């Protein structure tokens, strides 16, 4: 089975966002970058599919030289090949087109992504790549079973789950709960440092969006704080009803 897994590098969830000097990006100074948490489930699923069915796993990311770190992690987890598509674009169509070009080259049976990257939170890339490749897609997948060329997957929807059927090749985006990701072993981390990373140019597709600005949400005024006496709790309920008008 030929498996392609898209991973990305994002600021750690504990990062406090500071707007950069251009007002269009974030200040990366002091930011700790990690593998996008949902991509860990995609990568783990790719490794399990290979263990079960044989084949190869190719990890691909879009970014600058710094993004090689997540590819090194993937190599330490024993993916067969790592590809860096060099681009600083945040336009999802450019990113999806670049990823689709790699897929067209390696002709995967399964393409895996995390359900969203936790920086731009767009949820766009997986279905966009599927559309460009004319493949089925299942997003927010919490359970995946593949037998032969058919797949059955469970995906989270509002207040429940859907079971989806489709045929391979297909694009899957992974939700937390799909599996329990493994950690790389220290000797493998060391070995991964000298493994090759192939580089590709980004798609020449024109960007379809342009960042105007990035700003921090307006600071909130100080709220009203009470103690925990009966009278205090009564006062809170009264305010929620009369002042905030929410109950």
């Amino acid at each position: 089975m030929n498996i392609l897994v898209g991973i990305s590098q994002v600021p750690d969830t504990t990062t406090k966002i500071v707007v950069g000097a251009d007002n269009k990006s974030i200040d990366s100074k002091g930011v700790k970058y990690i593998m996008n948490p949902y991509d860990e489930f995609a990568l783990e699923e790719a490794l399990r599919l290979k263990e079960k069915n044989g084949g190869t796993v190719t990890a691909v990311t879009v970014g600058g030289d710094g993004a090689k770190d997540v590819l090194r992690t993937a190599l330490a987890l024993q993916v067969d090949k790592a590809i860096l598509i060099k681009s600083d674009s945040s336009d999802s169509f450019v990113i999806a087109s670049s990823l689709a070009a790699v897929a067209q080259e390696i002709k995967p049976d399964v393409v895996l992504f995390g359900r969203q990257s936790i920086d731009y939170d767009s949820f766009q890339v997986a279905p966009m790549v599927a559309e460009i490749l004319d493949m089925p897609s299942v997003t927010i997948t919490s359970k995946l079973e593949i037998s032969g060329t058919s797949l059955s997957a469970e995906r989270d929807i509002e207040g429940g789950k859907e079971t989806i059927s489709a045929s391979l090749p297909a694009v899957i985006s992974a939700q937390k709960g799909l599996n329990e990701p493994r950690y790389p072993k220290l000797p493998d981390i060391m070995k991964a440092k000298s493994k090759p990373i192939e580089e590709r140019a980004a798609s020449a597709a024109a960007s379809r969006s342009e960042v105007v600005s990035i700003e921090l949400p307006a600071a909130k005024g100080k709220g009203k704080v009470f103690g925990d006496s009966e009278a205090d709790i009564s006062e809170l309920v009264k305010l929620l009803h009369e002042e905030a008008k929410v109950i």
Partner: protein
Amino acid sequence: MKILAYLETLDGALKKTAFETITAAQNLAKQSGGSVVGLVIGSADVAPAGAYGLADCLVAKHALLEKQSASAFAETVAQAAKAENADVVVLPASSTGKEIAPRLAVKLEAGLAPDTVAHEIVGGELIVARPVYAGKARLKVKITTAKKVVTIRPNVFTAKKVDAPATTATRDFAPSLSDNHVKATVSSVSRNAGKLDVAEADIIVSGGRGLKGPENFHLVESLAGTLGAAVGASRAVVDAGWRPHGEQVGQTGKTVSPTLYIAAGISGAIQHLAGMSSSKVIVAINKDKDAPIFQIADYGIVGDAFEVLPKLTEKVKVMVGK
């Protein structure tokens, strides 16, 4: 601009997000001096849309649409957008909308703005705002293509009834579909009976580690039940296995914008705050008066959630008459 509003339905009725989509589409039409046409897939009662000002609605029908395939839905919306010569398509950023919109954008060669919370037209150009980094920052983006696809975050564009209600006229729309458009099909759906989802709820009551153990979450459930609210949870208690991931609010869970968010026994780690800070009214209950959650709370109670919740539930019961 001509705006196409994709209206979600469930069991033949328009969903709450459909009215929000109409309101967002009307705003865009008003700003640009254009008009709105609705689109539903399959038979549905669209009459309630009139109160929100929708006068014109396409009803797409085709045997292949009964398979509930997102790719076939996307093809249908694309054909409708072309037939109506729509400049902008507005969809909800729901689990289905998030599957349709990216495919639709590719088909229409359109720029896509996902999960938006505000739209403005400046000099004929559409600029949207959307939360990024789970709400830690807000990004303004200009869509630079002629055709545009926009998804809207649930609960943000409050559905507004108009002063002069319309009578919604329907037109049948027959898309041209083949088996190749049906790429993945829904074979079954299971719903958590009687449970509201945090992504859709008007009110959320969330519990954290301050509840001390999974056996005490009935205190959260009881207040949620009284308020007709959904139950949410912090990452700490989901990671500890007390609650399912579907309830997790935060950067690696769901980002929510309810009218009222009550955080009980949640200290307010940055990744949790990111997911709920855009709630309209926030109430925090925590025994540590210095907990970060109080910095964004509109109302706070310094006390043990374990003791405060039952008292609060009793008093809310009296208030709402249950």
